[in-house]
């Protein structure tokens, strides 16, 4: 990884330190058409044992952010700048060797589509055992025993025999469980789950989320849960970051985001969730338009072309001035605090019933 600007080494206060702290992260891809600003000045924190939900549409930079934490981008066309501190260790600009030791051991990732994310050529057991052997120096036999133990822990029946199966012999839900077993085999302190339930049907989704929560309670790991589904966040996350066009546009506790969201984009996300209790004749309200091009993001607030409230702000502030996201609870929007509250109560909330 190349760093644009090395951040100044700041004296960091010990003790009050967050477990994971991302500051002003920029991830840019050089393509033939120009530079894609996939992540554009993102900051967030995560404490031990907590779950952070990152929500946003496809292409909002959620996955890119987390691949950057693991250092999995192709260094040839990717520029990463900013600061990623994991347990006091700087990860941007860390050597491949250092990162290799951390991946799988201290930080692990659960990927979305378990059919393509697991190698079809090796047994599930071997794929789980591999990182355990690498990081703990365990023998083949010990690692296999560990793989059986992990498969049992994630609720796969007959782990003793299933350990020798290939991924294609597992059902979708079981494969996702195996993925989780693989991520947790070395007891990582940070687990990044990238849309872990998107490829699964709803009943299995709930099981997988419960499983992640249970395992978190047992081991006390921190989890970053990436999703586009606010319903997934509701039951699992402590804090939420809403991302749009590579930036965080709103930040708060899960209760804040679901009960009193402030950003028009978050309103749109909430409005597009289907509810069983809703009137079947009222169509869902999708967010109009599509996510902006990251090659050439709109000036000012990146959401303004899709925002219904740009007029309310008045003038062309939304088109010219990029709203800042305050520290802690808040949203990056030019609407005043009162306007946000009033619009939400008067116009948005009634539609959510």
């Amino acid at each position, binding site marked *: 990884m190349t760093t644009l600007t090395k951040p100044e080494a700041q004296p960091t206060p010990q003790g009050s330190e967050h477990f994971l702290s991302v500051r002003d992260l920029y991830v840019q891809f050089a393509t033939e058409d120009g530079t894609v600003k996939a992540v554009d000045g993102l900051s967030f924190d995560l404490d031990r044992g907590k779950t952070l939900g990152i929500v946003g549409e496809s292409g909002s930079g959620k996955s890119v952010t987390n*691949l950057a934490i*693991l250092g*999995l981008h192709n260094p*040839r066309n990717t520029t990463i700048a900013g600061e990623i501190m994991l347990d006091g260790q700087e990860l941007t600009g860390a050597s*491949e060797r250092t990162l*290799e*030791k*951390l*991946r*799988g*051991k201290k930080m*692990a*990732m659960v*990927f979305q*589509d378990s059919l*393509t*994310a*697991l*190698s*079809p*050529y*090796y047994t599930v057991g071997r794929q789980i055992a*591999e*990182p355990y052997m*690498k*990081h703990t120096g365990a023998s083949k036999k010990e690692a296999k025993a560990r793989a059986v133990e992990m498969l049992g822990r994630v609720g796969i029946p007959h782990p003793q025999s299933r350990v020798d199966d*290939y991924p*294609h*012999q597992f059902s979708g839900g079981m494969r996702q469980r195996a*993925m989780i077993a*693989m991520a947790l085999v070395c007891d990582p302190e940070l687990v990044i789950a990238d849309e872990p339930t998107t490829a699964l049907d709803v009943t299995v989704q709930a099981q997988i989320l419960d499983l992640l929560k249970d395992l978190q309670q047992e081991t006390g790991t921190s989890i970053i849960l990436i999703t586009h589904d606010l319903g997934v966040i509701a039951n699992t996350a402590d804090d939420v970051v809403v991302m749009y066009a590579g930036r965080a546009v709103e930040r708060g506790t899960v209760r804040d985001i679901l009960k009193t969201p402030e950003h028009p984009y978050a309103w749109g996300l909430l409005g597009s969730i289907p509810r069983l209790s809703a009137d079947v004749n009222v169509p869902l309200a999708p967010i109009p338009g599509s996510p902006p091009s990251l090659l050439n993001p709109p000036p000012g607030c990146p959401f303004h072309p899709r925002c219904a409230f740009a007029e309310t702000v008045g003038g062309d502030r939304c088109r010219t001035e990029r709203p800042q996201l305050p520290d802690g609870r808040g949203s990056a929007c030019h609407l005043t605090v009162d306007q946000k509250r009033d619009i939400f109560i008067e116009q948005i909330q009634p539609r959510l019933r």
Partner: protein
Amino acid sequence: MFRFLTRRVLGAIVILFLITAVTYFLFFVLPSDPAQLACGKNCSNKDLVSAIHHRMGLDQPVYQQYFDYIRGIFFGRNMPDGQNCAAPCFGFSFANDQPIWPLISDRYPTTFSLAVGGSAAFLVIGVGLGMLSAWQQGKTFDRVASSISLLGNSVQIYFIGPLAIALFADNLGWLDHGHDPTWTSDPIGSLNGLVLPCLVMSVIFWSNYSRQTRSLMVEQMAEDHIRTARAKGMGSKYVFYRYALRGAAASIITIFGIDLGSVFGGAIITEATFGLHGLGNLAVNAVFSLDLPLEMAVMIFSASAIVIFNIVVDAAYALIDPRIRLA
């Protein structure tokens, strides 16, 4: 795996049966009278022709002739004129009345050695170059290697063969001129004599394999499961060899299976270029002398070799890709 192999072998037997049947009927039933051919030009004596008919068993119904022919391959048989033909019996040559099998068993080591040696050479060189190119993707080595591959892809055996002989054998004296192997009596000399033909034959193949391997490896490295392996902390070399190569190998083997026929074809052209005496040489002579039993035998033999190697390739494929094994 056992069931898989059984199925493949049974399938191969059916295919071989069809090949022999079609060839047999084409050669012996359709175009001209073999007795007339065996009798020679200007043979107008009716009695002589019918005597030959009887001697060759041509007065029997066609299915009986075919049955006798197949039985002869497995158990040997006595020809109608009382001549004994030991198994495997492919009949007697029209040209010189010799039993066919010794002619073939004399020649096939050359063709077989060429095919195997050439394949080994182009797989090692081609796949190796392709892997290095993929590893060095976009760098100088990659560019040079793809240029060389393009060049190798556009030459022919009969063009580079003589050039290679002139350079490496005549001028530099590093390698032997090609000569027929005699594995039992002179293994080292046989090896020496095969190096140049095998290398020349490999050129037209490895260029293709290096380009295929490169693109397969690059494709594999972009797969999701590669990213997963790296996210587990596996080193990039480990991932390259254990994960990406494994995926690419399945496709390489598929391509190799398709190329098997051309490998034997290439071996035949190489024989001609280097003046070796293999099956190709034998078949060409058989065609020119209208020696039908010999042609037929060469054809059955080559077809069997290709079918058998195909089973080996399929088995290798199944070993590499577990999804095939159970299908």
